[in-house]
């Protein structure tokens, strides 16, 4: 049972993780499917994988029911565990790498309600920051905001590191979406977005296309998908727009590279694609379902069926 599949930055490698506790990496160049690595280290089903930006090398993070977060790295052609984080008391549900401009930072959301931030400081060392009780009952998803330099219209003197305001969004079992901001090296809750009536299952912060607006998509057990927009740069007023009410739980939302398409998967056994129309209304542009069709398949290999 595959729980997550992610292509790397360039679409050349595919990482999958599964309930058989393995994380597998495939080379998928030119339509091929070559298994490069079968990584073992988790003691429970692995829920999510996330690729770091290639400028840090070939790095993959995975999180699992076994409360661990493992960072894997490719050195000299082989994949190895480079760091293991065991600071959570319960299943870790989601991992998300920060924009590469901030450095190598990983956010992890767990069923123990806490969110950990692991920052690589060099020489194999990681600095941990933990936000306890971020969401009561548990945190299901984390998603970083794109890196936007405040006052980016003004040129920064070269060589100086711009002052980024780091933000990320999290969704939890308290039906809330929270926006966290780093201030004075501490993470503070900046906003609470309330609209869902049941557990929030996934949040996705849209990539920036240069506009001063920020957009977040959220989906929940209540079958609703909301699009949240904030018009001013200081991030103070977020307004939700209901994308659609599905008949069943919605599990996953994700934006395309240029944020012009939102993909939603959930209840009705479909993956639907949505696009914003002229008057700001989101319309469904395509359904992906089962049956016949021209697609190519990758076989992960036989799973042990019990």
């Amino acid at each position, binding site marked *: *049972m*595959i*729980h*997550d*599949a992610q*292509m790397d930055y360039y*679409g050349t490698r*595919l990482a*999958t993780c599964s*309930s*058989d*506790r393995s994380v597998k990496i495939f080379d998928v160049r030119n339509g091929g499917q070559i298994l490069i690595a079968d990584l073992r280290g988790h003691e*429970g*089903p692995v829920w999510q994988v996330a690729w770091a*930006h*290639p*400028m840090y*090398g070939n790095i993959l993070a995975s999180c699992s029911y076994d409360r661990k977060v493992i960072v894997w790295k*490719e*050195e000299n052609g082989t994949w190895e565990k480079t760091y293991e984080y065991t600071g959570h008391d319960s*299943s870790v549900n989601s991992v998300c790498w920060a924009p590469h401009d901030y450095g190598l930072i990983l956010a992890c959301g767990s069923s123990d309600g806490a969110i950990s931030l692991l920052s690589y400081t060099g020489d194999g060392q990681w600095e941990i920051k933990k936000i306890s009780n971020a969401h009561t009952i548990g945190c299901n998803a984390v998603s970083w905001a794109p890196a936007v330099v405040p006052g980016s219209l003004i040129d920064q003197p070269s*060589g100086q590191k711009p002052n980024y305001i780091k933000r990320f969004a999290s969704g939890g079992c308290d039906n809330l979406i929270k926006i966290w901001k780093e201030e004075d090296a501490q993470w503070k809750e900046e906003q609470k977005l309330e609209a869902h009536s049941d557990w929030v299952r996934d949040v996705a912060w849209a*990539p920036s*296309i*240069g*506009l001063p607006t920020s957009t977040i998509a959220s989906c929940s057990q209540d079958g609703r998908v909301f699009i949240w927009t904030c018009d001013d740069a200081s991030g103070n007023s977020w307004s939700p727009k209901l994308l659609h009410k599905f008949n069943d*739980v919605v599990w*996953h939302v*994700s934006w*395309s*590279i*240029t944020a012009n398409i939102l*993909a939603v*998967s959930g209840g009705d056994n*479909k*993956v*639907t694609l949505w696009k*914003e*129309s*002229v*008057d700001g209304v989101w*319309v469904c*542009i*395509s359904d*992906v*379902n*089962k*049956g*016949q*069709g021209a*697609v*190519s*398949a*990758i076989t*992960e*290999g036989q*799973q*042990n*069926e*019990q």
Partner: protein
Amino acid sequence: MEELDVEPPLTLIPGVDSKRKKLCFAWAPGEMLVYETLFPKECAEKRPGCPNIFIVRKDQDVYSQTLRKLFNESHGIFVGLQRSEEELAGKSRKAQLVRVSKNYRSVIRACMEEMHQLANSTRVPELQCQHSTQVSILSAMELIWNLCEILFVEAAPAGHLLLHLLDWVRLHVCDVDSMVHEVLSSENPSKHKDFWNAVDIFVLQGRMDDARHLLSKEASANPTSMGMCKILDDLMKKMPILSVGNTQTLTEMELKWQHWHEECQRYLQDGTFSSNLHMESICKILLGDENAILEKKELMTTWYHFLVTRLVYSHPTVKPVELRFYAQSSMDLFLGGESSWEPLDSILMAAFEFEIHQVIKECSIALSNWWFVAHLTDLLDHCKLLQSHNLYFGSNMREFLLLEYASGLFSHHSLWQLGVDYFDHCPEYGKVYLELHIERIPLNTEQKALKVLRICEQRQMHEQVRSICKIMAMKAVRNNRLGSALSWSIRAKDAAFATLISDRFLKDYCERGSFSDLDLIDNLGPSMLLSDRLTFLGKYREFHRLYGEKRFSEAAKLLLMLMTAHIAPCSFWMTLLTDALPLLEQKEVIFSAEQTYELMRCLEDLTAGKTDNQKLQVDDVETTKVEILRLALARNLARAIVKEGTLEGS
């Protein structure tokens, strides 16, 4: 654009069992991954597995070999159009735009030809089917484009309009030539079964000369009908047509036409052709009798052919605004309410109605690829025909389509370069789309990375330049290519990384006694200043060079400076002092007394620093080294003092 008026298309994935599993997905550059899974993510480990992940792609066309030429060549035309300044105005500008339009069409036709060849030469049935489908799609595209060219780009006025439409029909609609060839090459052309069909189709297409030529065969073969043939031939000869160079006005033309029409009417009513059904029918056609024309449905094959024929024989001076009514009624009469509309029909109808946005919308829905609408819309935009139909996010239709098309190109390993130019000509979002897409191009080879870099540098995309250089530097380090890594990190202006790599170089030197990548280090130039460690590396190498060239006093000065100016890291001082040894031991005195004092001070600083902690780990080699150094320094000091105290000369 308002509401979506078509149901979103359903894409089906084979082999997925919807009863037991749910579908989840992940985005990939250019495509989407879809896989089966079960929600909620419970702890149950032992669940029935589905090992399949499906890759779903929207646009397969990008990967087609033959279409690649279409993309490449149309790219050239597109860029040329953007760059052509609007210096020319009025007629010459229009002529220029028409030329561009014809260029696009010839590219489509060339592609069609090639595809056709492929379809004929292949033996694989699926491929043949695929190619043939592609040929018909391209053919439809050219048909539509041609009509748009006539109606929108050329914007032919009444009179010329019909001439262009006639050309259009002759070129596209049905293939008469093979039938005619058969007829003419037979022994008795006029007895051929298709003879009258050939004459008919010539008449229907307004090809009077060709019709007359065939008719003469009938006349010669059948003396009894010679009389009738002569009259018919005469009528055909006299038919007034507005030719391109003709200077007569529309009104004159209309008058002449009226006279001619009346003459045909007379002959028909007199029963001149009553003994020959074929010729009578032709006369009726000449008179624009709808029923007579409709009888030849199979020959015309399409309602738009019917439309043009009708116009030729009933209203040759039709105005562009009148087209829509004729088009609508032609379609109704021709199809007779039996068959439903095909997408091509609605597109053409929208064009006849001059609903440009409708044309673009229908084409977008019907075609699998944005190529056609993107280029056509761009051309129409240049003709100033698109009102700024602003979409919600401020981008106009032209830009929207170009962005979609170019984004599609980026999933291809070499076509992405074309996409760059398209983004360049999208003033609102082109830059940011380029930034987002260009980061995803796999940098498999150094050349590709350099190519991407050049593109970013030309457009002042500094963030992307830095990012790419960092990625390449990291790759080089992983493959132990330190020189390459260093040059990439210099290009990225990444001081931290440069320091890291310089340390590696220095470490290598300590271990092996020599430097790798000497060329690079020797020619660092001002980029040496990027990081202190890098400066040290460069200067240290310079020291070695000076030494090698036997410029000892300069080398000595440099060596000393490296320590006193604190360019050298403390960890390296021992090595530097050891390097000073041979200079101290030279016959000639190189270090002056003052310099020697400096060196001694450095040594003392070094050993003093290593007091409490290190004294416990007394390293024999280290202590010997220090002793040797002290000795050498003392000796040199002595010689230097003597030398400096001695008077020169005498």
